[in-house]
């Protein structure tokens, strides 16, 4: 049952893509900003985990909480320092995009300055043995990753659809001007969205370190790009879409490699994106909304 094992492998890495994709998707949904610095938040989360766990010697749960807290603050801070003025001034989107790329480069270089460009090794966080279920091989790390990501997505869905701040998020996303007139503090709502997205990336970072125990300042680059593709594939702005996109890309990668096509893995990923966008321009689960006039 190699095939099933490969699907599980794909869902494992796909879950991490999905967690990062959620951040892209939510931020885009609310302010139409493609936050290219989001992939680097996962790198920040990984280094915080490293500092607390390895340098500080604290237990895993402390490291997880510290990583989530730090990334949330970093996410909010980035929004406040780099994006808010541009957003409130109604600056053209290209300005925001370039600012986001600038923040991404800043984060990468900062961590290179602090930690050097050579990789740091992470300790074992989860039992790394493989489980033998009859003929199927499951790596326990993959299982933990998949379960955590699904649980977080359910939580997020509840948060957005049932709570007051969730309602504010949806309102701001639909029409920020009208939301403001209804008494919603859109600044706080946008900051909250950045915070939540970054917190999810922090969890993604911890899971990533558990599965791939070597972190570098540039780890967020390709990971962020794949997650962005996942968000677009699923329909950017849609939470279940981001999850679906993440899983699809993870499984596509895994199956391509298993079939001996390591050299074309990235081509397959981006090829899927192109084909989906040709037939469903809004992504798999995206809503086709007319541009506001």
């Amino acid at each position, binding site marked *: 049952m190699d095939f099933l094992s*490969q699907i599980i492998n794909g869902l494992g890495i796909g879950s991490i893509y999905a967690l990062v994709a959620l951040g892209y998707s939510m931020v885009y949904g609310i302010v139409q900003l493609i936050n290219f610095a989001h992939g680097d938040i996962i790198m920040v989360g990984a280094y915080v985990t490293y500092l607390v766990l*390895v340098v500080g010697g604290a237990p895993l749960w402390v490291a997880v909480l510290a990583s989530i807290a730090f990334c949330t603050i970093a996410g909010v801070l980035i929004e406040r320092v780099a994006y808010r003025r541009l957003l409130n001034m109604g600056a053209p989107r290209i300005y925001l995009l370039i600012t986001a790329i600038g923040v991404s480069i800043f984060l990468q270089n900062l961590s290179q300055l602090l930690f050097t460009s050579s990789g740091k*090794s992470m300790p074992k966080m989860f039992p790394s043995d493989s489980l*033998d279920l009859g003929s199927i091989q499951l790596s326990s790390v993959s299982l933990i990753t998949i379960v955590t990501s699904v649980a977080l997505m359910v939580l997020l869905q509840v948060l957005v659809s049932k709570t007051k701040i969730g309602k504010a998020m949806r309102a701001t996303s639909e029409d920020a001007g009208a939301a403001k007139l209804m008494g919603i503090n859109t600044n706080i709502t946008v900051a909250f969205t950045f915070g939540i997205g970054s917190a999810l990336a922090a969890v993604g970072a911890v899971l990533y370190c558990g*599965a791939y*125990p070597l972190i570098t300042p540039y780890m967020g680059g390709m990971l962020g790009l794949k997650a962005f593709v996942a968000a677009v594939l699923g329909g950017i702005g849609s939470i279940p879409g981001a999850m679906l996109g993440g899983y699809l890309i993870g499984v596509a990668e895994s199956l391509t490699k*298993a079939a001996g096509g390591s050299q074309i893995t990235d081509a397959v990923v981006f090829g899927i994106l192109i084909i989906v966008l040709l037939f469903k321009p809004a992504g798999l689960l995206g809503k086709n909304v007319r541009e506001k006039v």
Partner: protein
Amino acid sequence: MKKRFFAAALAAVMIAASASGCAQGSNTDSAAASGTGTASGDTIKIGGLAPLTGSVSVYGNATNNGVLLAVKAANDAGGINGKKIQYICYDEKGDATEAVNAYNKLVENDKVVALVGDVTSTPTLAVAQQAVNDNLPMISATATAAGVTTTGENVFRACVTDPFQGEMMASYTKKKLGAKTAAILYNMADDYSSGVAEAYKQAAEAEGITIVAEEKFQTNDVDFKSQLTSIKGKNPDVLFLPVYYQDLAQIAVQVKQTGVKAKLMGVDGWDGVLDKIDKSNADALQGSYFCSQYTAESTDSKVQDFIKAYKAAYKAEPNMFSVLGYDAMNMMIQAIKDAGSTDSDAVIKAMAALKFKGLTGDITFDKDRNPVKTCAILTIKDDAYKFVEYYKK
């Protein structure tokens, strides 16, 4: 800038002129007439090239430090046939054009009789082209590219080539580990990794080992679970990983996660992996084997003496580059001694027939002037490298 260069060139010419000037009269060496080498009265000039600054300066300095130690040791022991060695090394910054310029300076101004260098493959290839025209005996300590020594009859090297390591480990897999099946996972975007993998595959099949899986990945990949799951399905005795230590740190942990039971084997790119894998994950590498041209764990007293001398001189640990630099210079010295003169043809002939006992094992040259030597086999046990044996296929 131009002026300064001119002044420097002029100074170099003057120094060279005065040096050869004082050589007049007292010189009785036969090489004086040969044109390619002028041994000044009581010194033999050997040229050196290394990147002492720039992006690959780490390699250049380590190699040059080793060479300097060899020169000092030889001079302390009385030099070559009573003559002191004068080692003249220029910084080529890792650049092929700079290297050729520096080479021309060595030959035309300094009148060196032999060259120990260059360090990295690209400038070495450029310099070798020139050295062939001058018929200058040349040995590179560390240039591994296949084409280096096939440039001409006068070009040698002290390090083993990448394919040689693959053949070595294939032989070890069969003869010492008794494996019947093997799988390979390598980086197809990297010349070193794919070169060693190809050599291992051919040699292993010649030894009667069945290669059950040949999986690939790309530079910067971090997820290897799909390839490893495929390998797991084939259940090989050995998994050969000709990769650098950063990739190995990721692969080894995922080998454990996917439950692959094969014995892991690799080559000298593995050196340094224990700094990149946390203690809690190091059991993933337990009992694996790799080969290296040098190990500080060696029980050879010559190696231990070298390490002591190196630490005393440079306040740093020697690495493979320093050791190869030391061996390369000593091989050149030995060849000049054996030749009994600094005549190019005589030195080249002596070098080709050299039987040398160095820090990196017993060395002879094959017909392509690549060294044939023993490799140190290392294993990883309890989060430390352990020296197993010197192995010759």
